[in-house]
């Protein structure tokens, strides 16, 4: 109770300060009057009475000060006063203040932006769901004993990652006690809309308990009940996303009960998901959620709900309270071992890992998180360099206030008050810098999101700067403010205790601190600049890497027959017809259809196969990346065929099923034997190897050579495909209308979407490298400029202190260039030491991070040279200026 009254009183004291002061004065003067009157009645003269009254009170000023202390808000008033003082003195040197605020803003801003991104992935992996950190994935893994090189994609541990099959999910859900509610989901593209006017939408097939387990509430309508999900085939239902509701239905309240035509079936909308919820796959943005029971209906011919071998789902859930990760893992191991015994064909050698969401093995965060962590480290170094720079600038300016500080001390200000005064100025700068930083972070995260990230599934990271990010920014600001404010504050204090009120006292020791700071700043700047150079170089190299196929002059267009009831023959006829007509279009050099385009962010599918005549190395089958292509693919993509020939015509009925393998496949699995004619077994059929294609890039620019099997569209036509069209570079997009027309002529119900050039497609793969590259293109030069400014300020200040000495030397006949050279040399000594330290730091980090790669001389020699050159110029300018002064003037000043 009294705590409340106390706080209230303090608040009043703060708010009504002026009035309180007035009343206090009034009260004390009343007291004095009464005492004076009493003294007069006792016989004293009026003056004596007054004086005695004053003495009895103990001095009105003193009492007033004590009363203010007793109010309990004195410290707050001190701080507000100091902050105001800091604000005013900042205004007196606007240029310095601007430089500091802008540089701090950039430093804090980039740090906050990256921090928000990392936080979005790690702390809030499922946007829209509270405490989604508590969700764990159950990720099966095929424990292949083959060496790690036998994988189509780099993996975390031995074994190939697998999805969960629906029957397996049911077993896990039934037997796992450690999980509260295990959910299952898979992602799919859907065709939405009436025939002829269909668009693509990304959606998830989910288990009945999906929404309840996530703990979210619908914005409108409801989520399907368990009963509704079970009966979904009779009465299909769907939940749409908030974004979809906004863009397609204009937030109409009548959307519940409306019908959507999905994959050529009528589905009823029962609810709208809450705002901000975008599904349960990290980084992807979904529009539709349908019960998994609808799979057979929407994906014609799908038997995924019964087949244990069809692994298409992901499973996740919250751990029960008090269950540790180790316990959950142990239980999962036991259940999976059980399943391996009961169902050996699908589950032999299959184990599962319980993983935190941000460690999900599929998706961009695999390489994103380590990259972000490194980036954050570098940005923190940048911020430190900015702080060192600011400290130097403030130090230089603070020495001019030595006189003022000495006077304050002489008047009785305590050391604490002096430090508080000086720190408050730094804090004002730092908080303004933090404000600028927050603005930059907001803009930066918006810019990140504005980038086109539409691939097969729209990517959307919720990287908003939220409360935690803001708090981080402010905390960074305060820390920086204290860090670079302490140095000048301590310096001034130490100077003042010499007690000298004389101006012109020399300060040799101070230069040591300035030099150290300058050296530190140069070291840090060098590390950041080297990192920036490496990033940029890596990025430009990657862009120039030959992917193995020709990037320029190719157009891509996607189509999807999923949900339509077409058989293999019809698909073949469509493909043949489409290719024939497209090839007839003017400007088309060649055309082909393939299931997947290389360097897609989502990666080539991986499937099992058996090579006849090759002994299996383990119980599990061999796996390889696959693609399905029509004849003419290799010509269109300009991939050389190294042996054998292309696939036979689509409509050739006679030939046996064929495959073409790539060079890496031959190297890995055939061991020098003749590949043509060898047989491969997959999908319960036998294929004959008819050709060998050159190995190209399939998934990412930094992958090691990957084996791949090309299946012929004739043998395994796919529902969805990508049309590849080769034409003159620059003329790609002009073909788009023609292609659409052709497709419509053949099949008016089919939607052609995602028309883009092959170059655009490949560039998207680089999008996660492009972002840091762009950042460094801006930050690198900026840091260089900042370092130059810092050095300039320090040198300018140093020589200004030594004008008398310099003037004397000039007067005595020393040539100006010698004087300049000496000053520059002194500065460069510190700079080179700092640069050397920074170089070693960068070197050590580089060997650890980029294992085995040779040092690039352009980076490791060029960058330090550039920095030293800039430093030399920054030191030369003020030195030259001071050497021009009239020696007689400076001597007279003495």
């Amino acid at each position, binding site marked *: 109770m009294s705590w409340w*009254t106390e706080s209230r009183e*303090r608040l009043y004291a703060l708010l009504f300060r002026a009035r309180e002061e007035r009343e206090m004065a009034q009260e004390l003067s009343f007291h004095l009057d009464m*005492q004076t009157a009493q003294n007069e009645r006792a016989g004293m003269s009026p003056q004596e009475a007054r004086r005695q009254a004053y003495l009895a009170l103990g001095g009105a000023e003193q009492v007033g000060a004590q009363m203010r202390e*007793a109010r309990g808000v004195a410290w707050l008033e001190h701080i507000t006063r100091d902050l105001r003082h800091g604000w005013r003195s900042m205004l007196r040197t606007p240029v310095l203040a601007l430089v500091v605020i802008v540089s701090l803003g950039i430093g804090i801003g980039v740090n906050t932006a990256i921090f928000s991104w990392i936080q979005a992935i790690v702390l809030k992996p499922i946007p829209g769901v509270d405490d989604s950190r508590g969700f764990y994935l159950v990720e099966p893994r095929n424990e292949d004993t083959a060496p790690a090189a036998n994988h189509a994609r780099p993996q975390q541990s031995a074994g190939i990652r697998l999805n969960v099959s629906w029957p397996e999910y049911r077993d896990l859900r039934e037997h796992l006690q450690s999980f509260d509610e295990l959910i299952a989901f898979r992602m799919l593209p859907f065709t939405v809309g009436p025939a002829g006017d269909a668009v693509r939408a990304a959606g998830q097939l989910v288990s009945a308990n999906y929404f309840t387990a996530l703990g979210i509430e619908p914005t409108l309508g409801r989520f399907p009940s368990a009963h509704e999900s079970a009966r979904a085939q009779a009465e299909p239902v769907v939940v749409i996303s908030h974004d979809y509701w906004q863009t397609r239905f204009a937030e109409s309240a009548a959307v519940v009960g409306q019908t959507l035509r999905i994959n050529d079936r009528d589905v009823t909308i029962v609810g709208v998901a809450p705002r901000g919820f975008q599904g349960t796959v990290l980084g992807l943005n979904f529009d539709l959620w349908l019960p998994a029971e609808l799979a057979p209906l929407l994906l014609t011919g799908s038997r995924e709900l019964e087949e244990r071998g069809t692994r298409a789902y992901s499973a996740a859930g919250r751990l029960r309270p008090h269950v540790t990760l180790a316990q959950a893992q142990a239980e999962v191991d036991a259940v999976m071992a059980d399943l391996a015994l009961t169902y050996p064909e699908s589950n032999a050698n299959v184990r599962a890992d319980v993983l935190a969401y941000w460690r999900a093995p599929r998706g961009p965060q695999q390489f994103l998180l380590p990259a972000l962590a490194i980036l954050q480290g570098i940005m923190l170094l940048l911020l430190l360099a900015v702080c060192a720079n600011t400290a130097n600038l403030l130090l230089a300016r603070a020495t001019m206030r030595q006189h003022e500080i000495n006077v304050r001390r002489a008047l009785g200000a305590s050391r604490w008050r002096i430090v508080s005064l000086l720190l408050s100025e730094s804090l004002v700068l730092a908080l303004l810098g933090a404000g600028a930083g927050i603005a930059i972070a907001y803009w930066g995260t918006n810019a990140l999101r504005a980038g086109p990230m539409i691939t097969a599934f729209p990517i959307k990271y919720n990287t908003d700067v939220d409360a935690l990010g803001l708090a981080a920014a402010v905390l960074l600001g305060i820390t920086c403010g204290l860090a670079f404010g302490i140095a000048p504050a301590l310096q001034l204090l130490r100077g003042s205790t010499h007690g000298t009120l004389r101006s012109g006292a020399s300060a040799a020791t101070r230069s040591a601190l300035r030099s150290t700071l300058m050296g530190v700043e140069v070291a840090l700047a060098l590390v950041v600049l080297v990192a920036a150079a490496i990033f940029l170089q890596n990025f430009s190299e990657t862009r120039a890497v030959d992917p193995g196929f020709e990037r320029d002059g190719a157009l891509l267009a996607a189509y999807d027959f999923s949900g339509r009831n077409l058989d293999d023959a019809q698909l073949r006829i469509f493909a043949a017809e489409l290719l024939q007509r497209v090839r007839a279009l003017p400007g088309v050099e060649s055309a082909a259809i393939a299931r997947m385009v290389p360097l897609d962010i989502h990666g080539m599918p991986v499937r099992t196969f058996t090579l006849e005549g090759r002994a299996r190395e383990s119980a599990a089958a061999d796996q390889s990346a696959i693609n399905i292509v029509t004849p003419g693919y290799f010509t269109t993509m300009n991939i050389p065929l190294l042996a054998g020939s292309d696939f036979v015509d689509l409509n050739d009925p006679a030939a046996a099923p064929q495959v073409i393998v790539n060079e890496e496949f031959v190297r890995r699995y055939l061991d020098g034997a003749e590949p043509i004619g060898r047989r491969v077994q997959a999908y319960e059929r036998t294929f004959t190897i008819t050709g060998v294609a050159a190995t190209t890039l399939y998934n990412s620019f930094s992958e090691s050579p990957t084996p791949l099997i090309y299946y012929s569209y004739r043998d395994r036509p796919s529902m969805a495909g990508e049309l590849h069209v080769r034409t003159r570079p620059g003329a790609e997009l002009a073909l788009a209308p023609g292609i659409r027309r052709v497709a419509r002529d053949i099949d008016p119900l089919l939607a052609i979407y995602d028309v883009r050039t092959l170059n655009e497609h490949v560039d998207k793969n680089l999008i996660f490298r492009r972002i840091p590259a762009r950042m460094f293109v801006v930050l690198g030069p900026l840091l260089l400029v900042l370092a130059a400014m810092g050095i300039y300020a320090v040198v300018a200040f140093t020589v200004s202190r030594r004008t008398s000495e310099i003037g004397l030397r000039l007067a005595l006949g020393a040539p100006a260039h010698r004087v300049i050279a000496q000053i520059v040399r002194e500065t460069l000594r510190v700079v080179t030491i700092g640069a050397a330290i920074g170089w070693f730091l960068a070197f050590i980090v580089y060997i650890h991070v980029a294992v085995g790669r040779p040092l690039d001389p352009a980076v490791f020699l060029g960058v330090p040279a550039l920095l030293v050159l800039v430093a030399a110029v920054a030191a030369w300018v003020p030195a030259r200026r001071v050497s021009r002064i009239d020696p007689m003037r400076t001597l007279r000043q003495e």
Partner: protein
Amino acid sequence: MSPKERSDLLPGTLELLVLKTLSVEPMHGWGISQRIAQMSRDVFQVTQGSLYPALVRMKRRGWVKSEWRTTENNRSARYYMLTRAGERQLAAEQDAWDRSSAAVGWVLHWREGSA
């Protein structure tokens, strides 16, 4: 009374005295200091300067509240009065004081052989 016979106030008792004074009737600061001197038969001459900070503290703790009134001489002065919390505080402190002073008395006047 001669200065020799004046006592210094133990810390904390100033507030107790103020509470007691105000329990009789609301009063302004000047009046409080006069009244304390009078009630203590001049033993306690409150250093007037320490009274006002004490009043500020007590107001902050919610034991007294103040309002501006006019005196008989038609001057405006700040009058202090006890709040209910202040009354409770006075009763509590009075209790504590009585108990401890009695105990001190027993100790000081203890003789051999008495119970």
